[in-house]
């Protein structure tokens, strides 16, 4: 009976697959009638599923053991983390600890190095334990993802993090000492020479104090060029530099590629330089910033800027060389071009020849031609200069045209067939349009208020097509009620056919994601275990790593060094006695070499929590300032004797024996 039902289902599924296949070959025609068997039809009727639903299920369903084709690296928004998601299943694979302590990964809970990475992100006297994560960007080689590193910015605290995709761990956080917030990051140049981070809300550079009345004189924007050292896998702060920008609110950025390599494009709003003042009867920033018909697209010749910095034209502020605004204007580093007011996305086409700017308050996406911009720059054909003497290129002569998209076009990504996909916030749709004639060919609803959009390798020199994902700010009625803070909604859309087709929704319940990128799975080559004794932050054998049989406790004065190993199902040593006030250095090496055989380690009440993946070494330093008896145990159900994987950490009251 059961077998019969199953075989009927399989038969039904096969028929549906055949129908889907036939239909995708046929092109735009709506799905042909599915010759589903009775039992599949019964199931469909019972669950109220349409044929399109069944088709979407068949395109995204992952039977156990089958692996996804793509991985999304998504901003985790306010969580401060990055999400790794499989496509097409839209399953959450990992929440990577980045700016916020992450207990499961033992990130920021005692492990020296995790603590150090988080400490690098300090911007003042307060520990920062969250971030407004915006734009993850994969490292590129020749404009294509190489699957080695991921960079992501924190808008709130003006920081950029480096995640090594060898082990999916955050290895570095750089805190920008110059600006008060950032937005246009962390975008990379085509060979990942630089990670770009542009400021958002203008403030005095170096974060000095200046009253708002001195906004135009003292407040500034900035484009930061973090130099990335690929061999070390770290940003080299000393080799990094910046370009000072006018106090317009710089927004998103994108690096040129191929023909436009060497340039960075940044858009802006509030060229009115409105600062609000509602209590004094002045208009709020939202209206003050929306008075001009045009804002400015910033065009930066970063190779020229790099040469000027090398020639000593930079001014050092807070240890960073900054190319002054006046020099940037006079030396041809910075040019401005009008763009429809309050734009949002700025996205370079795969061939590098054009730049698409989403109108946001304008119904168009404007397509700027790099060749035209370059010619205007070379001929010095300026329309005017702005208040800071920066040359402004004529808008009409810079563009190829404008695509009429709809209300609130934001971001644009690309496929492999010459189409662009723009998120349209107010209309809440994804618009597909042709780069050839700038005509919209299809629209599909997003649920709801789509913000960013991503496509499979959709911002590289060779997009893959197949999928776009709408990253929606609201989910309204899409998911079960979980109280007034609704999940965000990622929607996977199939773009292989002429018409876009919604395949799946994925609730995001950890923060409001911004940008994401999607990479082909085979470009990622993460390790599965560490070599025994590896410190993940150096990638080398830790000098304190211990081998089995050499475990020991060494005391020098009031410093106690514990050389410890962990393997199923015991820690060695399993008894540690120190005296109140001792400084304890725990050096723990996992001797495991079997995949997925992770141990956790905690000394409770001391807020120590480590993740010991196979082979990993961790160092913990703390003061044993609370006398008492503390069980230390494995926090990951590692084996049948996991609960027995425990020991005692005793802190003898001072003066007792």
């Amino acid at each position, binding site marked *: 009976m059961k077998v019969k039902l199953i075989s009927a289902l399989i038969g039904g599924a096969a028929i549906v697959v055949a129908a889907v296949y036939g239909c995708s070959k046929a092109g735009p025609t709506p799905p042909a009638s599915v010759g589903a068997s009775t039992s599949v039809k019964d199931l469909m009727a019972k669950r109220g599923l349409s044929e399109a639903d069944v088709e979407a299920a068949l395109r995204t369903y992952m039977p156990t053991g089958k692996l996804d084709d793509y991985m999304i690296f998504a901003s985790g928004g306010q969580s401060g983390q990055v999400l790794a998601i499989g496509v097409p299943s839209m399953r959450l694979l990992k929440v990577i600890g980045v700016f916020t302590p992450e207990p499961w990964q033992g990130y920021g809970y005692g492990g020296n190095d995790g603590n150090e990475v988080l400490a690098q992100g300090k911007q003042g006297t307060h520990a920062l334990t969250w971030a407004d994560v915006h734009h993850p960007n994969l490292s590129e080689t020749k404009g294509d993802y190489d699957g080695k590193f991921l960079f992501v910015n924190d808008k709130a605290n003006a920081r950029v993090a480096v995640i090594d995709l060898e082990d999916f761990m955050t290895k570095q956080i750089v805190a920008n000492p110059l600006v008060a917030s950032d937005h246009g990051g962390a975008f990379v140049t085509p060979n990942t020479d630089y990670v770009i981070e542009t400021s958002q809300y203008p403030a005095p550079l170096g974060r000095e104090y200046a009253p708002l009345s001195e906004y135009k004189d003292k407040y500034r924007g900035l484009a930061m060029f973090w130099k990335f050292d690929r061999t070390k896998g770290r940003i080299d702060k000393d080799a990094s530099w910046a370009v000072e920008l006018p106090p317009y609110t710089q927004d998103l950025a994108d690096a040129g590629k191929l023909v436009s390599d060497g340039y960075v494009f940044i858009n802006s709003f509030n060229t009115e330089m409105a600062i609000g003042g509602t209590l004094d009867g002045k208009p709020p920033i939202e209206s003050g910033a929306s008075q001009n018909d045009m804002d400015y697209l910033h065009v930066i010749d970063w190779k020229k800027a790099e040469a000027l910095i090398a020639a000593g034209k930079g001014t050092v502020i807070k240890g960073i060389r900054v190319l002054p605004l006046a020099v940037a204007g006079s030396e041809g580093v910075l040019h401005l071009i009008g763009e429809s007011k309050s734009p949002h996305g700025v996205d370079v086409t795969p061939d590098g020849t054009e730049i698409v700017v989403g109108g946001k308050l304008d119904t168009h996406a404007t397509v700027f031609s790099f060749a035209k911009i370059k010619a205007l720059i070379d001929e010095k054909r300026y329309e005017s200069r702005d208040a800071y003497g920066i040359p402004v290129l004529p808008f009409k002569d810079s563009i190829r045209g404008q695509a009429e998209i709809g209300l609130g076009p934001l971001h644009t990504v690309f496929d492999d067939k010459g189409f662009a996909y723009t998120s349209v916030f107010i209309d809440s749709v994804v618009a597909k349009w042709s780069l050839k004639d700038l005509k919209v060919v299809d629209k599909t609803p997003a649920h709801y208020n789509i913000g960013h959009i991503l496509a499979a390798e959709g911002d590289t020199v060779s997009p893959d097509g197949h999928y776009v994902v709408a990253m929606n700010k609201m989910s309204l009625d899409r998911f079960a009620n979980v109280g007034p803070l609704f999940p965000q909604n990622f929607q996977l859309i199939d773009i292989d056919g002429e018409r876009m087709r919604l395949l799946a929704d994925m609730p995001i319940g950890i923060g409001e994601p911004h940008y994401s990128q999607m990479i082909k799975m085979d470009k990622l080559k993460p390790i599965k275990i560490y070599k025994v004794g590896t410190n993940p932050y150096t990638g080398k054998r830790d000098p304190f790593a211990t081998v089995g049989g050499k475990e020991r406790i060494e005391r020098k004065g009031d410093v106690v060094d514990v050389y410890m190993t962990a*393997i*199923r*199902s015991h820690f060695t040593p399993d008894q540690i006695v120190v005296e109140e006030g001792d400084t304890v250095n725990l050096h723990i090496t996992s*001797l*495991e*070499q*079997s995949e997925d055989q992770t141990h956790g380690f905690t000394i409770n009440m001391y807020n120590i929590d480590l993740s010991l993946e196979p082979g990993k070494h961790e160092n913990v330093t703390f003061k044993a300032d609370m006398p008492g008896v503390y069980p230390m145990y494995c926090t990951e159900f590692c084996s*049948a*004797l996991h609960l*027995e994987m425990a020991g005692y950490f005793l802190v003898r009251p001072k003066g007792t024996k």
Partner: protein
Amino acid sequence: MDKVSEDKPHRSLPLVSVERRIKERWIVVLLAVAAAALYAFSLTVPWWHFTLFAPQYPKGLNLVISLTGISGDVHEVNMLNHYIGMGHIDDAAIFERQMAAYGVGALGVGAILVALAVGKKLSPLMVLLGLSFPVGFLADSVYWLYRFGHDLDPKAPLRMKVFTPQMFGEGVIGQFRTIATPELGFFLALAGVVCLGVALVLRRRICGSCGRAPQCRAVCTSLLIGPRAGLPKAAP
């Protein structure tokens, strides 16, 4: 077969030419050398393979046994074995593994010497010598398997009835399904035995037509001396 009695070999000599007998003598030499080479080669390749499957190990754990060492998932298997109080498998047969190269050398030289230098009565020694190699390996392995399955630490977290892991085919230990199969090295050794077997047959044939059969003792003189040694005077 050959019913020639040793004291009257010349009466019923097989009708094969002198040249052929000379050739066969060289074949015996070559076969002995080949057997020695096969044994030597078997030192460098795996002899036996144990695969252990459990739900947590869908790809299986592998132990590869060669004459000189144990490789594969030794670390993991040791870790698992500690639960039942079994010793480290890399502590098994240390002496045998250290001596393997010398043993194989001695065996090779021995096989050649026996093939050439013993008298007819003792000539089956060459096959016995050859056989002792794979058979000795099997016996020693089973011995160690028995010891490891029986010398279990009584204070181990999991107490098991003593057992002997399967040396051949499928077995079950706890949640593990084990599969044990011979590998190239073992087959090379068997091939060496076959070489010696063929050599023996040829040897016996040559001995059967040996002119010095009455003088045949433990040591054969004919095979070591010039090509015509031991042959009867040329037939008419």
